[in-house]
């Protein structure tokens, strides 16, 4: 539908738009939405307004900036309306177009994603710089384009964020020890664009799709494994409809599939109580709940403790759908940070470690722990980091 004028008629011309006619107005979406209580128009009310033709009021509101694309409303909708996947991004695009000022952090992230291929505004030529800090050799396809079994799509935070690079170094070590034939795109890689789309920037997403698909076509590989649940979700559910035909896995199911060979390598007893946070993209959107838990349970001396909200009921870290770059905006609005809400649940389990499987979550939860004063008693670790730690003799 692009940025053209959206009317009730044009909305109802599309199967996804027509879905709003089936809404029961039960309110489950608004009740399950982590920011439903602060939105001017929570999802149920928004759908009712759309059906009443009150589109202008919906578009003029900034309610959708509080949508962190956590898939909770969609997972719970008894009518199966694809709110997070289709309807909300469509409306969010209009919100973004109608805002008198896009929040500065979000604007910078979107502009940087377009220009440098990453939302942090880091130089695209340094995307693979972290490779030099890895303990094992990592093949970059531009330098050595021989066919490879696993194309590891590292993604943005895992390439640039100093703390998230720990995840990349651990993943490289795990692949190496398992004897996986793997390579990365290096500086040719750009963000897959899932957050851009769910922020209401479909044009940016399409630009990234065109670029990434052209890069994929340059090389021969059997499967793509990615460290980022957001990339996994977009490659699986969106890129697949435009020619992405390779096998695809997130690192946690990929490693869980190699558990028989991995387990003997986990020689060190860690002795941690671990609670696992389900990433929205991996869990609710793609049903990956067991693989990360199986990996954690394979580590000697790890005892799993579940949070009150887990699996399909997990509470979002607040980083999806552009939320990663709206913390200042939410703070100014007086909203509770979702990462802090979740950190409190993690602390209540009595765990030593909050385990995660999404690169967004490390910095979000580490910040939340510091703000709440939990940082002396708990740490945040990616599942891959814990596996690598258990490999150290």
């Amino acid at each position: 539908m692009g940025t053209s004028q959206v009317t009730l008629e044009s909305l109802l011309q599309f199967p996804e738009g027509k879905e709003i006619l089936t809404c029961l107005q039960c309110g489950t979406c608004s009740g399950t939405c982590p920011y439903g209580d602060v939105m001017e128009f929570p999802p149920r009310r928004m759908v009712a307004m759309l059906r009443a033709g009150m589109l202008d009021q919906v578009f003029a509101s900034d309610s959708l900036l509080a949508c962190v694309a956590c898939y909770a409303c969609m997972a719970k909708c008894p009518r199966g309306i694809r709110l997070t996947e289709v309807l909300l991004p469509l409306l969010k695009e209009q919100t973004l177009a109608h805002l008198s000022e896009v929040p500065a952090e979000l604007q910078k992230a979107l502009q940087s994603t377009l220009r440098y291929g990453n939302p942090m505004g880091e130089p695209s030529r340094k995307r693979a710089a972290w490779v030099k800090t890895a303990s094992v050799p990592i093949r970059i396809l531009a330098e050595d384009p021989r066919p490879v079994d696993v194309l590891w799509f590292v993604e943005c935070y895992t390439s640039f964020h100093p703390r998230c690079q720990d995840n990349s170094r651990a993943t490289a070590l795990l692949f190496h020890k398992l004897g996986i034939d793997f390579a990365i795109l290096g500086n040719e890689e750009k963000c897959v664009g899932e957050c851009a789309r769910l922020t209401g920037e479909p044009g940016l997403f399409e630009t990234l799709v065109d670029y990434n698909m052209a890069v994929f076509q340059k090389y021969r590989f059997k499967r793509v494994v990615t460290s980022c649940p957001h990339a996994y979700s977009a490659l699986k559910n969106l890129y697949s409809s435009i020619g992405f035909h390779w096998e695809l896995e997130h690192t946690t199911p990929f490693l869980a599939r190699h558990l028989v060979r991995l387990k003997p390598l986990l020689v060190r007893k860690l002795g941690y109580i671990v609670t696992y946070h389900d990433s929205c993209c991996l869990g609710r959107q793609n049903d990956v709940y067991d693989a990360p838990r199986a990996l954690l349970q394979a580590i000697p001396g790890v005892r799993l403790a579940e949070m009150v909200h887990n699996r399909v009921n997990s509470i979002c870290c607040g980083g999806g759908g552009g939320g990663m770059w709206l913390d200042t905006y939410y703070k100014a609005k007086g909203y509770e940070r979702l990462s802090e809400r979740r950190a409190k649940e993690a602390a209540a389990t009595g765990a030593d470690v909050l385990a995660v499987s999404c690169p967004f979550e490390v910095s979000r939860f580490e910040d939340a722990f510091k703000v709440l004063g939990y940082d002396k008693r708990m740490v945040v670790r990616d599942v891959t980091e814990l596996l690598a730690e258990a490999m150290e003799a």
Partner: protein
Amino acid sequence: MHILVILKMVPDVVEELEIAPDGKALNTDYLRMILSESDDHALEQALLLKERHGGNVTVVAFDAPEVDDTLFAALAKGASRAVKIVGAEPGMTTSGAGRLLARILVQEPALLPAGLVLAGVQAIDDLDALVAPLLAHQLAMPYLGIVTRVALDPSGETASVLKEYPGGVRGEFEVRLPAVLGIQGAEKPPRYVPVAKVRAAMKSQKIDTVQAPALTGGDLRLVEVLGMNKPQLTGHAEMLEGSPAEVSSRLCEILAGRGVF
């Protein structure tokens, strides 16, 4: 009112800059160009004035890598015409650029008359802040620089302009139009333009190309670049280690040695 905005592409310092083998220029193999930040503000100020008072905005830029993307983004934001000047001699002096711009503005149809000519006050690749005043001189228009607010009089004959001085001092001026203004910052940050709108502009709008006329006179290349160097490391911090007594004793020695006491 018709507003002209002069845009300039400058080296993007996010991507690391390399010096060319001749040691006199940036290595263009890795160089990426981006719109000068204060020019982005000049465009935003022009668009705000257009929204407030009507009229149209024309953007004018010298050819440079990635300039088309910048011009289409300006069209997507609300400029009505984009003009690209091609064939200009590379390495022009500031005065040459001012003269050339003035010539083109006068010769090219429908660029002048304009009530306002806005340019970023300064660009990172020369810091001279002289192109706009030189252009104003050539066009015989008044000039005000380091401008952070522009309010048009309803008559369209004058504008009230806020100019910044060091130490937080600000001055308000009334300027007769047409005028050239060097914009330091727009009233609000440059707006976001969705990529889909830029893509649509690329399909439905065009960039007018103007051939740069040959300038006579010897002031085009009065400045020669002798050399370009990355900052040299000239010193480093000395970390004092040891017990508090050892560290404080060493600190006293250093301070005494430097004549602090």
